């Protein structure tokens, strides 16, 4: 690939100084992710994938090594600058959805725009939030509160929120961890659709079958990358859902 990478990790180390023992969570990871990629970051707990994820998400800084995000050296930025990078370059999707309760879907989606350094007119803000909700298929539920939405719908709202500032990178931390298998496939379908539109996605997961919906799997163990492969037989969420429905139909007919 000739284009500039979205993520360029160069011998990243992360050491936590907790108590007497230093924990070396990430030990020299070098990784490049290019625009339009859909990467699953995998590994058992303790493999350092969460730490790596935090650093990619500009929530944390590496102890050593360089991290270029969209050409910006994130490893040297201060707190405020990191906040701005998160606001403009990264969209987060969390395992626990992390929506604000008692706040409508629309307002949840609008939230990142409140913290943008360049102000957006109120009506433009509303328009963009509505557009993002329509993109994840929730246009008609804009005024619903999180407790009126199913888990899958809540995660869609979270995805819309992640997209609303048009980030360079969508970062998903176990996005299907709290969802049943069918809803998980639906959410993977949303990601695939967004990826097809050219959005770069990095997803942390420990579920192998979920990783098969992505294009590239990076496996970590003990703070190092042990495997980095392109997915050979990528699953298509549409097809899988179709099959699932047919199977359910069959069960219903049989009973």
């Amino acid at each position, binding site marked *: 690939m000739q284009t500039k990478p979205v993520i360029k990790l160069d011998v990243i180390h992360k050491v936590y100084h907790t108590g007497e023992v230093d924990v070396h969570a990430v030990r020299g990871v070098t990784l490049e992710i290019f625009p339009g990629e859909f990467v699953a970051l995998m590994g058992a707990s303790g493999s350092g994938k969460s730490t790596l994820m935090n650093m990619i998400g500009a929530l944390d800084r590496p102890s050593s090594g360089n991290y270029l995000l969209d050409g910006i050296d994130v490893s040297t930025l201060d707190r405020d600058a990191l*906040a*701005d990078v998160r*606001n403009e370059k990264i969209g987060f999707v969390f395992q626990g959805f*992390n929506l604000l309760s008692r*706040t409508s879907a629309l307002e949840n989606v609008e939230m990142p725009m*409140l*913290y943008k350094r360049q102000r957006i007119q109120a009506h433009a803000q509303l328009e963009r939030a509505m557009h993002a909700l329509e993109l994840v298929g929730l246009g008609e539920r804009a005024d619903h509160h999180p407790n009126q939405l199913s888990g899958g719908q809540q995660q869609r709202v979270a995805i819309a929120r992640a997209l609303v500032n048009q980030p360079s990178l969508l970062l998903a931390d176990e996005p299907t961890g709290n969802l049943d298998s069918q809803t998980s496939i639906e959410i993977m379908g949303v990601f695939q659709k967004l990826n097809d539109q050219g959005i770069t996605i990095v997803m942390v997961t420990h579920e192998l079958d979920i990783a098969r919906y992505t294009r590239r799997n990076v496996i970590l163990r003990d703070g190092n990358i042990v495997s980095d492969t392109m997915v050979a037989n990528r699953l298509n969420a549409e097809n899988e859902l179709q099959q699932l429905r047919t199977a359910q139909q069959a069960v219903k007919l049989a009973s």
Partner: protein
Amino acid sequence: MRIFASLKIAGRALRRNKMRSLLTMLGIIIGVGAVIGSVSLTTGATKQVEDQVASLGENVITVFSGNFTSGAMRGGWGSAPTLTVEDARAIAQLPHVLAVSPEVRDRAQILANGLNWNTQVMGESPDYPQIVNRSIASGSMFSDQDVRSLAKSAIIGKTVVDQLFPGENPLGQTLRIRNIPFQIVGVLAPKGFNLFGQDQDDIVVVPYTSHMHRITTRTFVNSILVEASSDKTINQAQDEITDLLTTRHRSKEPDFTVRNQADLMDRVSASSRAMGFLLAGVAAVSLVVGGIGIMNIMLVSVTERTREIGIRMAVGARGADILVQFLIEAVTLSAIGGSIGIAGGMIFSWLIAFFKDWPTVTPSVWIVIAFISSTIVGVISGFYPAWKASKLDPIDALHYE
């Protein structure tokens, strides 16, 4: 971060825990309400007193003769024979003096209509009603001619009318003071009790010359009432009177005392100032207590909403954004509490005014002070929790359970 958006977030956070927000505000509400209520009551009372002082006459200077000392016996103000009618005439010539009345006072048993009554008999000049800000309800004031001719004319107050002429028109009737018949030429408009609880209508006024030569045999006056030309010249007039009398009396120590209405007013306002300090102290204490309540609840709120703070930071909120959000929340709490307190205090004072017939005035400056200080309390008590929130680590905050 837009202020409007912050206010909306703050409003939502406060509505989420209505009962808690109300209880938190209660400290501020009660403090501000108590202050506004008591300020309204004392301001009303002070204003009433000031009105009464003003009703004693505007720009009035009173010259008392010194206290009389004979051997070991000491008389009160006005007892020493030092002020004369000539002094009064000289004072009348001063540039900033509008009117003068030499005053002679005596208590006497008076008879009329077969009834008798003990009252204050005053000798005054025809300028007396003007100086002390009183009007003649019926009849007329005696004239300068009456003063010159030692006329047996008298003006009486309403209490005297009620006691001696119940249900009758006293005008033209005869009144005997120390067995000397005086004709009633006028009745003073009623004025009620003064600041010191004296009945200002229990009074008979005669020309000072008649008083000094017919009722008593005096060559001195008890005091001299002087009206200065305006409130701006009153102090100058007072100084001139002092200089004039010092020269006239050629005394080393002043054998007279000069007081003006402004002195009395000063004393009234000094007491209301003292009351004001007391109230300010109460207000400060209650606002501090209210502020501690707000700080406490804001700390709880920050802990409860750690995850929300984490989410906001993850999507790009800077520490300052979080700080402002929580500050606005604290200020909203205290400002709403302050407003409710102001309204409550005013309603309370209106109720007092309505049911207890006590004049109450809520000075607008106190409303402003109350609102601003409750807002400041919000800023101060909200700052530490907000600062704490802004310093949270986004990763820890996100994973807070």
